[in-house]
């Protein structure tokens, strides 16, 4: 992957983007057990696959979601976050 498509700015070199990890639902910190909270802050789905990830186009500070195959390094689509679905 050398070019990524920003939903706001269109195709840009990947060096302009910042990766921020997989989209994961956060448990309520006030009610979550210690185990559930540790699971959320530490554990990751490290296996390869098709993942939904947070990315940011840094020059314009545009945050969005990319669906990417982490084994082939191919981005299938990028779009803005529209709440938890």
């Amino acid at each position, binding site marked *: 992957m050398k070019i990524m498509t920003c939903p706001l700015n269109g195709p840009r070199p990947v060096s302009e983007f910042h*990766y921020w990890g997989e989209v994961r639902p956060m448990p309520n910190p006030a009610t979550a057990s210690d185990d559930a909270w*540790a699971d959320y802050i*530490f*554990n*990751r*789905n*490290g*296996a*390869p696959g098709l993942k939904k990830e947070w990315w940011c186009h840094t020059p314009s500070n545009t945050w969005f979601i990319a669906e990417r195959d*982490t084994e082939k390094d191919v981005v299938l689509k990028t779009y803005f976050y529209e709440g938890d679905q």
Partner: protein
Amino acid sequence: MPWRLLRFALNKKHPEPRMFTFHEKLKSSYDVVIIGGGGHGLSAAYYLAREHGITNVCVLEKGYIGGGNTGRNTTIIRSNYLTPEGVQFYDESVRLWQDLSEDFDLNLFYANRGHFTLAHTDSALRTMRWRAEVNKHYGVASEVVGPEVVKEAAPMIDITCAGHSPILGALYHAPGSVARHDAVAWGYGRGADQRGVEIHQQTEVLGIDVEGGKVKGVRTSKGYISTGKVLCAVAGSTPRILKMVDVKSPIYIHPLQAMVSEPVKPWLDPILVSGSLHVYISQSARGELVMGASLDPYELHGTRSTLDFVEGLTSHMLEMFPFLSNVKVMRQWAGMADMTPDFAPVMGKTPVDGFYLDSGWGTWGFKATPVCGKTMAHTIATDTAHPLITGFSLDRFRNYALTGEKGAASVGH
């Protein structure tokens, strides 16, 4: 080549012995199955056989021996870590390294060079002092030195780094060394093979059978093996194996790239690391400059190389050594690094009975090859974590008891 030598080479009376025995088929069961024929897996097999008399062991390797991160690292060996757990662990490793060539009767080209971690800022210098104090407390040779000592050890360096990040000092670690990485895997492999361990290359693990929380067997591309003990030593493939046994972990995979220059005359004796410029360099016995930088910026399960990496690394390298501008890059490559949140490994027992982990070796695993094998062999043989690895257990995350080693990572990640 002299004719006498050629005649000797062609004479069938003096065949060159193979490093390993080739085994046509897997047995139906083994006492221990080791997944991963890299340095760590073969080292564990070697110590299981040599120190615990467990020889009904097979090592399964998807590709070829030492073809993963064992053959992709930049071969630096040091023990100047930050945490007491880390310092004691790596110090034991360095001691094992020093006798290893003799142990194997195989020249590992272990070369003691001295290791400088350069500080370009006051805060970096503060971390160096901290590391030096922890190191000295555990009897590891480390000291903070001034820029003049760096200049004397590497006269070609621009001590101001192109004027914008002058070197204020360094952490000097005299035991810092390099070794021939393939030879380490071969040495451990041959030693294990001679003691009865079976090494199966081109054999991929497809699944692991767990019943009632216990390991029962391993499904491979060459058939089924029943076993009660499995060691996972697969570097960047750890999460794939953990998925087979349904164990969660904080391990995530980013590629780490490295490159070598064309060979040049010897001019650089010590190993130099700059955390602020994100580069490290040493000169191999062949004269090539072995160089690395920080991790790739995003998760990827592949080993492709990028031009971005070469551009970034060389621009910083030229700040340190401007005279290298005419030296060509000969090749570059990547390995998959299994990173952890605290930059310490994940080793020992797991929630699955009989499933042992030697993982989370991110960008710091080569130097630990001997001690990992030794401590994992102990852990497997006795089913109790070796005292040197209790700080690296998987459950430290659940207990919020991390082993913060990031300050000792060679470059800021």
